[in-house]
């Protein structure tokens, strides 16, 4: 089927990454680690999970930080980073999962509405995704298997693998 959804390309965006504070229990990371081991991939040592908000806007970093701090983060258990391009991390495979274009992103819609209602920005788009940091002696093939079987449903989601830094 022809997909004639407007693809927003080359637009300016910021990524807000939200992760559990070190002292908080990362229940999703623990769960994913367990599930990876169930796939028969035993070399995994640690998994951390972050939520991503891709905010497509011309606004500056200051506004995005305000949005993140005031609206998106649970300041007790979570912390956040705002960036355009992330750095690779030593020993960790990084996987990003986003919805494909045209798939309804309910959380993104709600975030957009909330940001507009808060009056911080007037025009923007929000896409939500997940980021997985996977530590362990893994081959790219294994990481791909983890993505296909566990992290992304390729029918509605795209995944991107960034090799260990």
């Amino acid at each position, binding site marked *: *089927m022809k997909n004639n959804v407007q693809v927003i390309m080359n637009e300016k965006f910021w990524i807000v990454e939200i992760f559990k504070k070190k002292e908080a229990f990362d229940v999703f990371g623990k769960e994913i680690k367990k599930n990876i081991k169930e796939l028969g991939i035993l070399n995994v040592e640690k998994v951390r999970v972050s939520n991503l908000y891709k905010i497509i806007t011309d606004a500056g970093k200051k506004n995005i930080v305000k949005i993140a701090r005031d609206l998106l983060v649970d300041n007790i258990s979570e912390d956040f980073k705002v960036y355009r391009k992330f750095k690779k991390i030593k020993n960790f495979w990084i996987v990003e999962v986003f919805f494909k274009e045209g*798939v309804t992103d*309910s959380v993104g819609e709600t975030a957009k509405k909330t940001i507009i209602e808060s009056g911080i920005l007037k025009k923007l788009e929000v896409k939500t995704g997940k980021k997985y940091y996977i530590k362990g002696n893994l081959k790219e093939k294994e990481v791909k298997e983890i993505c296909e*079987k566990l992290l992304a*449903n390729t*029918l*509605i989601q795209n995944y991107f693998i960034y090799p260990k830094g």
Partner: protein
Amino acid sequence: MKYAREIYILNADEKELIEISEKNLLSLNLEEMKKIKEYFSFLGRNPTDCELECIAQTWSEHCCHKTFKAEIEYYEKERNVTKFERICLLKEIMEVTEILNYKWCISVFKDNAGVIKLNEKWGVAFKVETHNHPSALEPYGGAGTGIGGVIRDILGVGLGAKPILNTDVFCFGELDYPYKKLPKGVLHPLRVFRGVVSGVRDYGNRMGIPTGNGAIIFDNGYVFNCLVYCGTVGIIPIDKVEKKVKEGDFIVVVGGKTGRDGIHGATFSSASLKEDIPTSVVQIGNPIVEKKLQDVLLVARDKGLFNSITDCGAGGFSSAIGEMGKDLGAVVYLEKVPLKYEGLAPWEIFLSESQERMVLSVSEENVEKLIELFNSEDVEATVIGRFLKTGKLTVYYKDEIICDIDMEFLHKGVPERKLKCFFEKKEEEKVTYKSGNLKRDILKVLSNPNIASKEEVIHQYDHEVGGRTILKPLVGFESRGVSDGVVLKPFYDSYEGIIVACGINPFYGEIDPYYMAGNCIEECIRNIVSCGGDPEKIAILDNFCWGNILDEEELGKLVRCVKGCKDFALKYKVPFISGKDSLNNYFKGKDGRIVSIPGTLLISGIGIIEDIRKITSTDFKKQGNLIFVLGKTYNEFGGSIYFKINKIKGGIIPKPRPEKTLPLMKKIHYAIKNGIIRSCHDCSDGGLITTICEMMIGGNLGCKVDFSKVISEEKSEEIILFSESCGRFVVEIEKTNLKEFEKIFEGEEISCIGEIIEEGKLEGFFGLKKLFEISLDEIYKSWRSLKF
């Protein structure tokens, strides 16, 4: 034409017609395509894409139930005698309700859900839907929107009912299914399972509706096509049950916006799953939008602001508006529909199955008030057209007519299907099996995934929100025990209550779907009765999920099952009030191999009781109390868990015996109502021993049982412990009530088999011989062995 595409069918030959149907995912067969060609030849023009899509959705199996309305030639062969019958499945089911003709069945088989009377002012609506295909592809979204959809069904019954309970029943492949055997594109049962459970959890919990009843079945027949049944119960004032669209009413769409999600859901779900699927069939839910919609809708209902309502489910606007305007006609202006994003083709807007939308029919004088009310609650409401007496469904996009077809043709034009099928009754034979080690077998039965505790799943659901749940899905000591059903107290100022339970067992269907139907109906009634329900005030819903019904043998099984439904519902005197069928649950591999699911029938039941203080639960209550078995045990192992774990084929399928069981159930109801029975649990999968173990776990008490006392066809240990005969209950009574108990049950097949003890162990005797002794810890550990 600017906004629609003409589809050239006038000059198409048979082969081209089929090609058009396949290319556009219409799921129409040749005969139907020919009928469409005939209609447009008469009009002297080609159809537009929108018209063709609209007809395809309306005529899909999902929307108009072609198979259930078809005239079927049915041949049944038993011992070389072949009987022939012409049968219409829908009529068979509806006939039950007509014959029983209960006054308390207020609205049956015509609305979004069935409604029965609760008291003089209120009715209860109940509906169960399936969402199998979407859940197989995207478990989280599919199951979530399944729940969302059935909640909207309840919001759309009459002028709107308030949802107060969700139910869910799932069938999955076995969780240890080897990854290597899965074809490309098929998700592993474990992943489907986790996704479905979290989908139902998130949607139900966020809507603030408790999820109180359900079941989970594991069988490798469901690896390619999982089954997800979602149900919702709602309450509605009796004077709001009737609705009627008035001429000149405005068509108002409320709730979510329209996007490209879930296009072709109805036609897609009427086809088989293949290895390549487009993204757009997936639906994604947004419970927060639906929650706001629900709240404001009920306010608008009480203010009398609309005349009719329906939900946008399969087929989107095309089905919802087409259905509402059936007797009048409708004019729709598609450019007015609020969209999620630009770039949708008009037919996509008309067909989209975006979630959380409903369609209202509003009189001119109320339109402004209604829109104002909805906007005040942050819910979108938009006028998109009008119901006018044109007899046509006319759709404009800007200045162009993109759809203009007669309602008559749309709703009555579908060619009647003529189907043929056969069923060959297999000879059932008694099989006896001697267990080498009873204790080991008992623990094995308890740890079987189909028996084992589903506590981990149940705890994820909120079953308390709303504060109406009196008897919860988990009962007894540390909420370990399992309940037969859920009891709700819908009103704060009255003790009236509702009991909801279900019955399902696909394993019996492999032997004979007729008795599977009987067993499911009885299990459902038994569950309600053992909570304290009145067997004379129960209504049931049927949900059929079947495989490839173009296969004459599969269709034969379905017909046989429907016949069972009719016969046994009449014998147990329970009316059907609503139902749904999901056919074509089969997988077609690249090599053309077809894998059908086991034919599965879910019976969901709803019972009304006068006083929720007069119910009981399944957990043992006090040491020293006596344990009775009510009902007789037969050598019936067909489809049983015991044979499954020992890998034995054959055996006799449990036979429902309504002439015995119905009077027994009336007495149980009387005894529970009068406080004689302290705990009550029915015997079903896993046999008597499973029932006793579950009661022990719930009570955190042990018991001493002499199994030779059980009234049985044969005095065999295996039969008494593991046979799954119908019509049996285990009850607990206090010694001081013995005389009264015996008086109530005079003339019935009952026997006292033992006594509850404080020490946590199960001591099993057979006369003087000691069979086994198992500690409660061992029992609990085996029963809790299922880990997700």
